[in-house]
């Protein structure tokens, strides 16, 4: 009886898991199918039918070249790298002084960062837009970079939390050796923050790569398009050519998939950590 019950419970469990995996994968798999079909094949077959030729890359070439996806990747990479380096440096710098020093205005500063987490970026876009405009950054990559840096309070938090676990004794013994505060930050704190930096890189990386809103609103110029906006443009000219759009979708997902498969362990931890604000 007990065995029977356990087996039944187990069957339900695996059925649910298989169904969940099916629902998660099906929408993506049919896109992969469509991306490998020729135009004639696409219109003649159902979405659930696999392609005849699994090595038909014609749609990919078309999507990549005509969709200017290379520009998209280059711009995304540029913005991503500068923003991540910037967020790591500014975030760890402010976290370092807030965690290690006592000074006038410290609690005010801490409070200002705390309060800012309450302001969701999406609500203030209308007036943020005017600021970017006044700084004459509209339609430059610096609009996105500054916005990603300026609204990145999560990074400050992750660093602050992590700094708590780094012993102050380390700083003190370095000071006995005559190290300056700058050396302590650069040689001791920053290297020890590595796990937190990885978390920040992952969370920021995913957010920036997937962000549609900021580039769409602040950098409409074609030469500045990122992956999100490049893909969004497929909606017009390729509206009915789903085999080409599908190839574009897969091209946009591939880097995420590669990053996910190679960094799985860190990604899981990063997301769990980043969510506990």
């Amino acid at each position: 009886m007990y065995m029977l019950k356990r087996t039944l419970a187990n069957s339900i469990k695996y059925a649910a898991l298989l169904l969940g995996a099916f629902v998660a994968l099906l929408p993506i798999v049919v896109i992969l199918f469509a991306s490998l079909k020729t135009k004639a094949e696409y219109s003649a077959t159902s979405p659930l039918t696999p392609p005849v030729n699994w090595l038909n890359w014609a749609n990919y070439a078309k999507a990549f070249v005509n969709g200017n996806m290379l520009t998209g990747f280059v711009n995304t990479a540029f913005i991503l790298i500068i923003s991540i380096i910037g967020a790591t440096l500014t975030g760890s710098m402010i976290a370092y002084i807030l965690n290690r020093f006592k000074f006038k205005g410290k609690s005010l500063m801490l409070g200002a960062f705390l309060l800012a987490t309450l302001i969701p970026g999406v609500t203030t876009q209308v007036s943020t837009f005017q600021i970017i405009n006044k700084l004459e950054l509209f339609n430059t990559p610096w609009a996105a970079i500054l916005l990603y840096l300026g609204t990145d309070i999560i990074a400050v938090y992750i660093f602050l939390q992590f700094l708590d676990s780094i012993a102050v004794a380390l700083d003190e013994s370095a000071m006995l050796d005559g190290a300056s505060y700058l050396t302590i930050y650069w040689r001791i704190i920053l290297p020890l923050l590595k796990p937190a930096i990885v978390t920040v890189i992952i969370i920021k990386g995913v957010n920036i790569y997937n962000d549609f809103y900021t580039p769409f609103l602040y950098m409409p110029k074609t030469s500045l398009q990122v992956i999100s906006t490049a893909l969004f443009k497929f909606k017009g000219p390729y509206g009915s050519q789903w085999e080409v759009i599908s190839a574009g979708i897969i091209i946009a997902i591939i880097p995420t998939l590669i990053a996910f498969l190679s960094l799985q362990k860190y990604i899981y931890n990063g997301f769990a950590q980043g969510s506990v604000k």
Partner: protein
Amino acid sequence: MFKFSNLSYSKQRMAIIAAFSFIPLALLVTFAYLPVINMFKYSFSDWNGYSKRLEYVGFENYTKIFTDPEYFSVFKVSLYYFVATFVQMGLALYFATILSFQTWFKNVFKGILFFPSLMNGVAIGFIFLFFFKPDGTLDTLLQALGLGSYIKLWLGNPEIINISLAGTSIWRYMGFNFIVFLGAISSISSDLYEASDMDGANRWHQFRYIILPSIKRILQLNLILAISGAISAFDIPYIMTGGSNGSKTFVIQTIDVAFKYSKVGLASAMAVILLLIVIVVTLLQRLLIRGEED
């Protein structure tokens, strides 16, 4: 020659505090606080975003939002996303619980369920346009299962469109909740399970009396965040439908009013309302959690 390390520690301290806080503070003020202050200012004006002068109109914009059904009706759309969050968290909790016990291909299932939440929003929008389009994935699947009579215009029918879009949003965000819950559950000591096994507890008992109480806080946090999440829904409906057929959300409405119709004053008033809702909700959540800790 000047060397930083030759300064006394107290001088170094002052220099480093000033140097290290300058850029982060400048960014914080420019991109977090200044926009909020300006937004309040604009919200009492009829500014169009480019003219030199702005005329103050008092509470006119606010009255308009709360009396004109065109602006107020978008809150109804939020209800769909709000309900969807409960479904999403239920699923996430279920999968997190079963995958925290011994399971074949545990990591494979974990990866598959989580991956959608890492995907590009525009890609997801397109994938689900294909999914819901006539003769698309969903229709073909229903056809194959002999359920062809249930086929509807998933994105063309104002009665269903928000359910389709909220469904997409569940697909997109479930994995994120799932991984957070899984993390919380995995921090429960395995001794507790072992002890309860000895006492003859079954899986339901373990879920009810061990897992649920241990992750109560994170569950509450997510539930409360669901309110602001529902009101600020933007990506999925904007990319998929542009807000047509009755799928306009509050944020789409705000962006349209500001950038399409150049009514920055009115849009700012809408944004202020959105901000106030989010702040109230977040404060509520902080208070609840603090109450818990005491």
